[in-house]
């Protein structure tokens, strides 16, 4: 029997603003968080008996959701069965990683499979400490113009974190690394590009920044692969086409449709130069694991309760009582949200995780600075389809992190390889990519110093750039002199209900666990909402959309989703939001407005400028 419509939580639950004695009535503008928020009132000492929302798992999406709900005014209890934050997005030490692998292989988790970990004897001999490493289970890069970045700023979570730039994107072609030609300047000055190619590339870049307003150019190709569009419409050569699709667009295969690929290429180009001559950032000390911790802390400041080493036993949708592993119970006013990895025993509603992501993560005893831009500590290497000995059908994407990012000790680096290829083929592709990386780095790092001229180039403005084209070219002329020391090698398969998407579309995160009224007798998880595991996407592009969708489901509206404005007297960080939006930005906002691919509300488009 369905009672009359309950008011949505947005209607019933006053936001933080209204509860606060500091502020006047809500006027529809962003709420102002008072001074000393979170430090003003000591928190109650007892375990809460009643909360609005229980979140099980501290993965990135759940943690963003916790912060959004807490600042909206909901009371939140967030737990994690692990002794650390992050769950599927965790950043782990070597000891924790070892434990994680054992748990994956012991458990009946339908989320991970086939985890294999090799730890070199060198690790045990005291040269390296377990906690000197921060290994991400799902490494991600952050585009400089993205909705996660604007939420990081808005929530002030960015102040808990440190960010560094990433500008080196390499495409692996014909057994060598080609560094991406990604700026106007580089295109003009690159001597290896014929004049005609330069012109065509420039023409394309100009077009793609405003592609949504020029459907007449691409309409005939909207259901066709972008490769044919680029070749036929812009007369681009194969090398440029591959760079655009795989390094700039970071697409998974050559079949990607024209509009999707254009959107992804544009993502890169509009992120370029937002903070400097690079499109992408990453957080130091670890990726999503660090961000999860930051959002959890933000939620805690807004009043959320945290318990690690705690799992849920069951939830009863009639009594609305959740029972936990330590024997405690809590009455839930609104919803229980669970990560599939942390579902209770005897669960019956976990959504099918039918998409595979295969990952190979290695720690090697090479700095890999050969692959980084001067002053940076990370690079992206992409192996396009059919570039590997395994004849790969899907791209293999690699994120290389050097010790300057503080995820590994000096002299080492971490290689994160991933592919959307499934089954044995995926594992073979990863192995082939690892082999190619290994050959390349051994060749490059053992090159004679005399031959180094030409590798480091200084341009007319005194900028130094690393020329990995030259580094990579002479692949066959060198024989391998020594073998690469792999300190840690981790292989695993991860499953997710999120397909490898080309463009963020809210519908792909809509995982409605239990449709209304259909309860499974005896199941311990009737009436809960399940979140999705991280997808294969190498950027953070899904995180905010997924969290916002869940927020909307729970609260009834997304009006209050990080609708925050922190009171601030510090000139250093104070920014007048309206002041930084100039004509250019308005133009960009309009472009987003007109874009059918743009799924985020317009308000974000403007705020990204801050």
């Amino acid at each position, binding site marked *: 029997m369905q009672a009359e419509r309950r008011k949505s939580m947005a209607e019933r639950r006053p936001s933080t603003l209204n509860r606060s004695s500091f502020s006047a009535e809500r006027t529809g503008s962003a709420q102002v*968080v008072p001074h*000393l928020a*979170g*430090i*003003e009132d*000591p*928190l109650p*000492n007892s375990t809460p008996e009643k909360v609005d929302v229980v979140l099980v798992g501290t993965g990135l999406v759940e943690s963003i959701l916790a912060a959004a709900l807490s600042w909206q005014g909901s009371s939140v209890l967030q737990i994690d069965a692990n002794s*650390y934050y992050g769950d599927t997005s965790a950043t782990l030490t070597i000891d924790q990683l070892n434990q994680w692998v054992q748990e994956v292989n012991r458990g009946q988790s339908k989320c991970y499979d086939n985890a294999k970990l090799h730890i070199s004897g060198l690790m045990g001999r005291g040269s390296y400490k377990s906690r000197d490493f921060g290994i991400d289970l799902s490494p991600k890069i952050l585009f*400089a113009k993205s909705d996660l970045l604007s939420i990081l*700023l808005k929530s*002030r*979570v*960015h*102040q*808990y974190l*440190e*960010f*560094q*730039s990433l500008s080196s994107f390499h495409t692996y072609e014909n057994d060598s690394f080609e560094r991406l030609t*990604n*700026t*106007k*300047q580089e295109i003009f000055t690159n001597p290896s590009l014929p004049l005609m190619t330069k012109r065509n590339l420039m023409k394309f*870049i100009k077009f793609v*920044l405003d592609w949504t307003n020029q459907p007449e150019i691409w309409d005939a190709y909207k259901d066709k692969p972008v490769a044919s569009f680029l070749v036929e419409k812009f007369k681009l050569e194969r090398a440029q086409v591959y760079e655009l699709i795989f390094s700039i667009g970071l697409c998974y295969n050559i079949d990607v449709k024209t509009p999707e690929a254009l959107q992804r290429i544009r993502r890169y*180009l*509009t992120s*370029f*130069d*937002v*903070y*400097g001559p690079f499109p992408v950032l990453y957080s130091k*000390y670890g990726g999503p694991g*660090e961000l999860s*911790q*930051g959002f*959890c*802390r*933000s939620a*805690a*400041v807004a009043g959320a*309760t*945290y*318990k*690690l*080493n*705690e799992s849920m036993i069951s939830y009863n949708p009639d009594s609305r009582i959740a029972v936990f592993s330590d024997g405690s119970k809590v009455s839930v006013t609104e919803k229980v949200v669970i990560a599939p990895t942390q579902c209770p025993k005897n669960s019956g509603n976990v959504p099918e995780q039918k998409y595979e992501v295969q990952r190979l993560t290695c720690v090697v005893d090479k700095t890999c600075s050969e692959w980084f831009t001067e*002053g940076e*500590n990370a690079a992206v290497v992409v192996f396009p389809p059919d570039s590997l000995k395994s004849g790969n059908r899907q791209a293999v994407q690699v994120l290389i992190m050097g010790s300057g990012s503080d995820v590994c000790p000096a002299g080492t680096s971490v290689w994160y390889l991933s592919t959307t290829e499934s089954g044995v083929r995926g594992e073979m592709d990863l192995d082939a990519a690892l082999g190619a990386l290994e050959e390349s780095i051994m060749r490059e790092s053992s090159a004679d110093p005399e031959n180094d001229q030409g590798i480091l180039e200084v341009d007319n403005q005194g900028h130094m750039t690393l020329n990995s084209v030259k580094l990579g070219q002479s692949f066959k002329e060198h024989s391998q002199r020594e073998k690469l020391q792999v300190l840690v090698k981790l292989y695993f398969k991860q499953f997710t209900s999120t397909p490898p998407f080309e463009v963020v579309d809210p519908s792909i995160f809509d995982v409605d666990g239990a449709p209304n009224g259909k309860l499974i007798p005896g199941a311990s998880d009737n009436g809960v909402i399940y979140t999705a595991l991280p997808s294969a996407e190498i950027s953070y592009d899904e995180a905010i959309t997924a969290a916002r969708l869940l927020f909307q489901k729970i609260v009834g509206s997304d009006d209050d989703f990080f609708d925050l404005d*922190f*009171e*601030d*007297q*510090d000139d250093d*960080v104070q*920014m007048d939001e309206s002041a930084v939006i100039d004509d*250019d930005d308005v133009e960009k906002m309009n472009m987003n407005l007109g874009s059918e691919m743009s799924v985020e509300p317009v308000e974000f488009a403007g705020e990204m*400028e*801050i």
Partner: protein
Amino acid sequence: MLQFKLVLLGDSSVGKSSIVHRFVKDSFDEFRESTIGAAFLSQTLKLEKHEDVTIKFEIWDTAGQERYKSLAPMYYRNANAALVVYDVTQPGSLVKAQSWVDELKHKVGDQDLVICLVGNKLDLCEDNDTVRQVDMGDAQIYAQEQKLLFHEVSAKTGAGVAQIFQEIGEKVYERKATESAASTAHQSRKPLNVELQRPSTNDSTSCCV
């Protein structure tokens, strides 16, 4: 201005936040005070022993995450100083404080960290000393053994609070001064972090403007 990260630790309800609140409130008129939203509290402090030196504390509150031992590694990372607080009227809260000291030394490594042990709620013992459950001598001996700074304070009356921050401030400043003197010789080029609140706007190498 030199900035230092200070973290608070101790059992729930020993008055960690109250101490900071008192420190920040009392200094309000005298020095510039600012919060950086809900991230952490910033408070500048003029050092008494060093003329013309003003430092800035970034004060991180546990936000309740200590209650179920759920503090994240992020909390401890790069901390320069820690206040480990106990309640002089709570038997056993010193023992808890000691376990936090161990935790800190394990997580941060004490060569970089100034730890100050603080007994709070001194005001409760003023009229009636039978309320006191933790002997000052016991705490002091422990602090000396562990090479910690030690103070008894009252966040309520403000007694002793300013001194804690003065002493910590001097100590972290002196450490920093010796450290930077030693390391200027071979300054390695460290990669610069990107400040997210400061987008670049007029770069000539731009590809899309």
